[in-house]
């Protein structure tokens, strides 16, 4: 076996951030080589450099032993490198064939030789087991088939070195199996495959070698058969994995939030969305709501925040807040981390400082009288970013440019900035990387110790059990079980309680 691609000490800095400090890896032909790392560790940047989309500041790229300098993706394609993008690069209104040949069309005279192209594509599809109809419009294809088109696209250009950027992120399990079978075939054909992912179980399943990057540097290059997922995860984070735990009992006597017989009836008169919910939440206490999604958790949050009409009473620090709207409730000191950060918590196409304003548009530091105080807001945004370790160039960066973990840390920071006495945290660590997860847990721990009451909704049972003092299990809109000491339960027991099995 020979080395297909070698990266030596690649470095790349962008204004404000160092994306790559020192990344090295060596990929052999006929192997699947995984590149793993947390979001923001520099995986994508190094692959964009290898694919000619960006130029490195330092270091060396060798393809088949020869040093190369790519100015654009065309150079990389000429060097037989192909990229299967995470977000498909396909024209929906084109046929599969048109999508594949675009940019390197076979010609006969001045026309495109569609017949020759079709023949070649059909042959390739058969050879690599990538089943596809070349004359169908891409818009009619499912996700798995679209990915096959992407793979055929790079193979059509003669790629021998294939980069897969988080290819399983969009696939359902069955499609993942198909993809892995295809990868198996490509490996057998002597291709070198670079597989970027942070799903470690998949990495161990498909890869021969694993390179781990952390904070822009290669920290390890290992054989996948020699490591466990946990070891890889610890290499990625650089320390032991964070544990969702709290210490001691910080519960104070005063009740921050009290729900009395809260129900949300449906207009159609069928079963209530939530029904007769009653519980107290003390200051300094974390109450976890466990339940399979869609059993009323979202509605419960909306009732507490005043986003939905309900019957019954909700009291906050002893006063009834039934008549208060969302803004007034927030003014009283209720903070919210919504479950879907991109749709409910951020304006993706706006800079961070504008996102800082959301939910805080009625007072300092954002407003000065009736006018927006942009300068202070930006300064305050910068402070939040520093305190909560939000990795982004600055307050004017667009929210969309941040990784999910950094977005979530920013949202947590924004809610904490007002020091609310109640925080409703809906899936606070969903879809974030291990590092951000640990950071968010740490913030919740600190807030709890300072006396904040936290209502935690999560689908991650270890998080629920570890972070909560008390657990409430929701099933079909009602609380079916209360576990007063969360340390006395296991994920298995909780799981069966959530499904209603005894």
């Amino acid at each position, binding site marked *: 076996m020979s080395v297909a691609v070698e990266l030596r000490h690649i470095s790349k800095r962008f204004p404000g951030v160092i994306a790559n400090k020192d990344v090295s890896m060596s990929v052999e032909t006929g192997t699947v080589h995984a590149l793993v790392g947390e979001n923001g560790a520099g995986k994508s940047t190094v692959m964009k450099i290898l694919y000619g989309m960006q130029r490195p500041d330092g270091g060396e790229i060798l393809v088949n032993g020869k040093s190369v300098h790519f100015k654009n993706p065309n150079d990389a394609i000429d060097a037989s490198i192909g990229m299967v993008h995470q977000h498909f*690069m*396909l024209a929906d209104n084109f046929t599969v064939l048109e999508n594949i040949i675009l940019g390197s069309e076979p010609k006969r005279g001045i026309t495109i030789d569609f017949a020759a192209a079709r023949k070649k594509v059909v042959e390739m599809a058969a050879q690599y087991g990538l089943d596809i109809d070349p004359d169908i419009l891409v818009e009619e294809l499912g996700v798995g088939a679209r990915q096959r088109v992407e793979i055929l696209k790079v193979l059509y250009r003669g790629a021998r070195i294939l980069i897969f950027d988080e290819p399983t992120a969009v696939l359902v399990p069955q499609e993942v199996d198909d993809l892995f079978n295809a990868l198996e075939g490509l490996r057998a054909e002597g291709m070198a495959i670079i597989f970027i992912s942070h799903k470690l179980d998949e990495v161990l399943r498909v890869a021969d070698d694993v390179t781990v990057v952390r904070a822009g540097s290669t920290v390890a290059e290992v054989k996948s058969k020699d490591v466990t997922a946990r070891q890889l995860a610890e290499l990625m984070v650089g320390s032991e994995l964070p544990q969702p735990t709290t210490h001691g009992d910080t519960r104070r006597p005063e009740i921050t939030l009290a729900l009395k017989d809260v129900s949300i009836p449906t207009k159609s008169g069928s079963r209530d969305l939530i029904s007769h919910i009653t519980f107290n939440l003390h200051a300094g206490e974390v109450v976890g709501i466990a339940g399979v999604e869609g059993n009323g958790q979202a509605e419960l949050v909306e009732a507490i925040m005043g986003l939905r009409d309900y019957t019954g009473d909700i009291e906050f620090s002893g006063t009834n807040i039934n008549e208060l709207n969302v803004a007034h409730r927030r003014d009283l000191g209720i903070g919210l981390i919504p479950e879907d950060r991109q749709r409910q918590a951020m304006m993706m196409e706006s800079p961070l400082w504008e996102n800082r304003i959301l939910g805080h548009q009625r007072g300092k530091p954002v407003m000065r009288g009736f006018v927006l105080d942009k300068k202070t807001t930006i300064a305050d945004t910068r402070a939040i970013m520093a305190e909560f370790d939000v990795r982004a160039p600055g307050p004017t960066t667009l929210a969309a440019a941040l990784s999910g973990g950094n977005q979530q840390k920013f949202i947590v920071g924004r809610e904490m900035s007002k020091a609310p006495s109640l925080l409703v945290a809906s899936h606070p660590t969903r879809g974030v990387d291990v590092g951000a997860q640990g950071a968010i847990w740490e913030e919740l721990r600190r807030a709890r110790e300072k006396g904040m009451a936290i209502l935690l909704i999560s689908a991650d049972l270890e998080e629920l059990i570890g972070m909560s003092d008390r657990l409430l299990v929701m099933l079909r809109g009602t609380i079916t079980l209360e576990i007063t000491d969360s340390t006395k339960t296991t994920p298995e027991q909780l799981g069966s309680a959530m499904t209603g099995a005894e």
Partner: protein
Amino acid sequence: MKVKTLKTLRYATMLVFVLAVIRQITGASDLTSVGTASAALLLSVPIFLAGLGGLFSERAGVVNIGLEGMMIMGAWAGGMIGYKHGPWLGLVAAVIFGGLGALLHAIATITFGVDHVVSGVAINIIAAGLVRYLSTILYKSGSWLGPSQSPDAQSISTNGLPVLSGGKYFGWKSPDFLNYVAEKHWFFISDAAAILRGITGDLSYVTVVAVILIPLSLFILWKTSFGLRLRSAGEAPIAAESLGVNVYLMKYAGVLISGALAGLGGGFLALVAANHYQENQVAGRGYIGLAALLFGNYRPGGILLGAGLFGFADALQLRDSASVHALILLIVFVLSVLVVRDLRKKNFKKAALTMVFAALSLWYFLAVKELPGQLVTMTPYIATLLIMSLASQRLRMPAADGIPYRRGGLR
């Protein structure tokens, strides 16, 4: 392709038959006369050229509201050069001036990322003002007779299909068979012959060029790699970029071709439909071309159909307002066909609504003997509106049409 051609032929025959029946009922002889068909073609061509121009631009992902302005520039340049250096050079100038307008649009939208509609509207306003300004200078210098009209140019010669529709070939005068049949006043046969004679006889050579542009555009856009790349710029520019397609170049090419065609359309108005440039000659035809483009669902054949419908309505109102009255009966018929179609699809709500419209139209046809003049003049515009509302349901525009594109979208 052959199946499609047969289908088109069948629909065309059916339409002519319906027109013949309506002519018979109403006695509006101009509905299917040689003169109407000929005028309809003459009025369709500029709209078709504008629509085809729009096709190239929008397929490359640039919305081109500026077609109107590019036509104005083409018409003016056609008149200006045409009377001095002959009509053919005038047309060349029209193409170049239309292209200049397009270059402005391309620089604004592609290089500087200006909103496409804003840039297009600006070009329409600038073009109208600019040509007026230039005309005034020419008038002051004494070479023009007025600030709103250029001197007359020579006209471009015409010809017809040999044997079938007259014309002259190398000094031989061809017989005019279709006209002979048309004058026999046989039901349907004479109607069909008259329409064919109208669109094949006394043709300007420029019209022939315009017709050739249909297969040429189809070929370029769907059979060559240039066409595939140009369309990819309008469908998925970032994907195209990732495959090494120069998206900026494709967009520039699309917009420039667009302006050249719109300019040719303007030149046609000045030098073929008339024999001089006149202010307000374009009169919204750029916009109607855009409507034809939408009606044709971004395909050359569809644009031709849209332009043809508008040209027909326009020709009818210009020649004989009595025939416009007969046109209402045609609308009743078309709506009835739609009712049947909707009933078959079990779309009862829509069928009922269409039936109400059909009934109202029929009532209006029977109640009113002659349409008021204002309404007659409006006919082509009403027809455009009606057609648009019927056609817009199955619209498929290029996916990235009108979205500003920046290189480096990959990063």
